[in-house]
């Protein structure tokens, strides 16, 4: 039965149901935060935050503390580091942030290597352990996701202005520094609560891929958030199912589905647009209506 193959893994296995719940919460958090990461071009900072939490998690493991506590401390250190670099460094911030995150990654690996089960621990941190999430972790995730949604809702206007033009946020009475800080904190919180499910390395994929796919089809930012969350949710479901039947790593399968959906959408849209291209008469009418230079060219500062 096809239906059986699609549903029963989640009905008959408690760990699969938990994994699905955790994954869906990751999708919602990443759908909201990823939208702003994509629109503001913060992908690199998101990636850096993902890696920056590693030493925190490693130290927490050595001390026997919950991984999330360590991740939170690591993320806070990373945000402070990024803030310091962007203010002080004469290098391009990409270079400095790149070095910071490689340094944090190396520190994390060095710390983990002191523990007995080095490779096992490292794999769990980097790629997650969605099939082993506990009820407490899911509840924590639920709280964090609700908080992320609430903050994003309250800050939607300054966030939109920041995406459009940070100067407009400032001249509208919303400090661009403050709201940029809040946005970074939301990215950090998303990474911290998602790393148990999909890992510090793969959370970046869940942050970017569904939001980037949604950006291809959305005309409004609200639509983009909903679509990104939905695409993330479908990826979680399909990824877990593939992992169950094909015995592949769950976190990686989920992220793989999300990235495949993005590339398939990108190619599909190109093909569709080529087919739907207007006739020559329509095009000349369109050209007459728009006499100026190509919009992309004109947009370049």
């Amino acid at each position, binding site marked *: 039965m096809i239906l059986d193959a699609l549903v029963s893994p989640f009905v008959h296995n408690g760990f699969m149901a938990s994994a699905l719940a955790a994954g869906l919460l990751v999708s919602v958090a990443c759908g909201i935060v990823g939208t702003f990461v994509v*629109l503001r071009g913060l992908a690199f900072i998101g990636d850096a935050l993902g890696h920056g939490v590693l030493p925190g998690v490693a130290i927490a493991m050595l001390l026997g503390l919950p991984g999330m506590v360590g991740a939170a401390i690591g993320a806070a250190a990373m945000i402070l580091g990024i803030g310091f670099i962007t203010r002080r460094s004469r290098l391009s911030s990409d270079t400095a942030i790149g070095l910071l995150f490689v340094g944090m990654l190396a520190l994390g690996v060095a710390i983990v290597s002191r523990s007995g089960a080095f490779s096992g621990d490292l794999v769990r941190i980097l790629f997650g352990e969605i099939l082993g999430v506990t009820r407490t972790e899911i509840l924590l995730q639920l709280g964090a996701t609700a908080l992320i949604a609430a903050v994003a809702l309250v800050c939607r206007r300054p966030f939109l202005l920041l995406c459009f033009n940070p100067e407009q946020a400032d001249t509208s009475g919303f400090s661009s520094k403050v709201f940029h800080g809040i946005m970074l904190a939301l990215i950090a919180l998303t990474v911290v609560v998602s790393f148990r499910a999909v890992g510090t390395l793969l959370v970046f994929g869940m942050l970017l891929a569904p939001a980037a796919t949604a950006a291809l089809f959305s005309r409004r930012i609200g639509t983009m958030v909903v679509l990104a969350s939905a695409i993330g949710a479908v990826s979680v479901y399909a990824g877990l199912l593939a992992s169950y039947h094909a015995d592949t790593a769950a976190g990686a399968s989920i992220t793989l589905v999300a990235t495949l959906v993005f590339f398939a959408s990108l190619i599909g849209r190109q093909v569709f647009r080529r087919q739907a291209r207007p006739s020559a008469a329509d095009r000349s009418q369109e050209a007459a209506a728009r006499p*100026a230079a190509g*919009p992309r060219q004109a*947009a370049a500062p």
Partner: protein
Amino acid sequence: MSARPPATAPVLEARSLSVGYAGRAVVPDLDFTLEKGRTLSLVGANGSGKTTLLKTMAALLAPVSGELRVLGAAPGAFPARVAYLGQFHPSGFVLPLRSIDVVRMARFASLRLMGRATREDERQVEQAMAVMGVSALRNEPLDVLSGGQRQRVLIAQALARGAELLLLDEPAASLDGGGRETYRGVLRDAASAGCSAVVATHDIEEAAASDYAMLLAQRVVAFGRGREVLTAEALLSTFGLVVRYGEGGVMVFEHEGDHHCGGDGRAP
């Protein structure tokens, strides 16, 4: 150099003001006032300090020294009463936004974080789009518009703030002839409705038509009534090269710089 007029509370008041970046003055010692309903044009070559002065008025830059009062308070005290349109729009055009969403952003300054948009907000948005002739583009995504259409949308956004003071940085630069006519009419109507405006411009004709003009070349070359200030000599000090033609007409070129700034216009 201040032009002191019949007494209404000044919209802008600068005393020994120096504007610049990171503590380094670009234009020192500015003293001027601008009254309600008056327009001021800032004229000068690239790097002359027009944008720096506008950004200081918009509270995007802190004054290097001296004092600036905007609507009787420190710059930035009343975001809902001041509209600023800058020159660069870094990432805005790749966003999934329709024109009307962009114009609606103007109301955020008064709606703040959680205020609900009212009919009055929507009326301001519709009216601003109508006067700039972009109502028909309301549902168009921003990235399919031409450069001129986008600029009209952005000017509509500045108008929809319903501000008492407009700070506009080369608003007409990418507009075609029709667009410039519309924009000038809109600015005249705004001024007669009591709205003040400071406009950085390369268009000498526009500057001559404004109540006051300030010629900048990292210092104030001249400041006063629009037509009285824009003499060939003052323009020569500002831009470096002035070609006279016709009856009293002048054409201005920058002697360096990478973009055309030659407004042609009629100075007395």
